């Protein structure tokens, strides 16, 4: 019963969430409340923790909530429910499209969709820049943007290395101020 609920919750959230994992977060919250698995506060704590880690957010939430509600089996169940149906759909669609690849109209479909993807990515790019502006202000954002363009696009450095360097920079920066804050919190 519990596992049927876990499956249905994440199946619905996965099948109804358009726009990638972040778009399905409110749907996951609705499911969590429907079954009374946790309160708003705990959910937002878990979301905050999930956001401190890299990688897709929907599967981190599904995995953790599934684990909380039904142990390891619940975790696997929640992940399968949120990932599997759409992956299977995707494979079926693309494989059947590939068998028509030699027809000119299928090539035309690909051509038609490329500019739409460009617009979607452009909008996503702008979203990231706006969020960054809120965090750092224009000066630092522009500095970071130009730095990244130079390193990745001009010098051809692997983006993973650039990101790793930024993370290490944050990690080793000004530890003494951080220490003070933590001590203050534990008191």
């Amino acid at each position: 019963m519990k596992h049927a609920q876990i499956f249905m919750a994440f199946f619905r959230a996965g099948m109804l969430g358009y726009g990638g994992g972040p778009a399905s977060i409110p749907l996951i919250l609705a499911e969590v409340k429907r079954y009374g698995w946790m309160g708003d506060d705990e959910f937002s704590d878990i979301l905050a923790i999930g956001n401190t880690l890299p990688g897709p957010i929907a599967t981190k939430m599904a995995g953790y909530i599934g684990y909380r509600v039904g142990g390891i089996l619940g975790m696997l169940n929640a992940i399968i429910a949120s990932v599997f149906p759409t992956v299977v759909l995707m494979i079926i669609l693309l494989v059947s499209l590939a068998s028509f690849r030699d027809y000119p109209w299928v090539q035309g479909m690909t051509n038609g969709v490329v500019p739409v993807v460009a617009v979607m990515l452009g909008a996503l790019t702008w979203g990231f820049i706006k969020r960054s502006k809120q965090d750092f202000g224009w000066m630092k954002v522009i500095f970071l943007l130009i730095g990244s363009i130079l390193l990745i696009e001009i010098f051809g450095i692997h983006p993973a290395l650039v990101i790793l360097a930024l993370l290490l920079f944050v990690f080793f920066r000004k530890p003494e101020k951080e220490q003070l804050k933590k001590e203050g919190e534990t008191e």
Partner: protein
Amino acid sequence: MIYWEIFLAFFIPGILGYGGGPATIPLIEYEVVHRYGWMSVEEFAEVLALGNALPGPIATKMAGYIGFEQAGILGASVGLFATIAPSLMLMIVLLSLLYKFKDSPKVKLLSSIVRPTIAVLLGAMTLRFAETSYAESGILQTGILIGASYYLLERRKVHPAFVILGALIYGAIFLAPS
């Protein structure tokens, strides 16, 4: 060893992409198109477009399909595992520790500092896709499609699935190579 390559191709984006699945897309593109040469920019765009037309998390749809294309069911499983498992394990194992640090300014800075870099990667991908479209369909058709989809997606907030469906039909009719 193809399975090892698939694992790496999705493990690296999964472990470095802050900001959820969409942030990992340009990192996946880098591995799949530029590093391993499994598909061209057009093919990647097509997969991404269909992925965006379907519901559910995008990173896992990409990993599942690309893994499947390269090495069948086992390839799909490896791709999915590499995308999901590392960050989920970290989350479950480190939960109590992360809980303490979730409001720490340093941890918050960790995810915001990489955002401009992700923006650059996304922007570069945007340009590559626009260039590809220009090469395949010419400036006029590219302009029409970019203008129309911008208007529909961003101004009218039409559901992406409908816009992609429309573009597929438009392309099948007007953009087929003769």
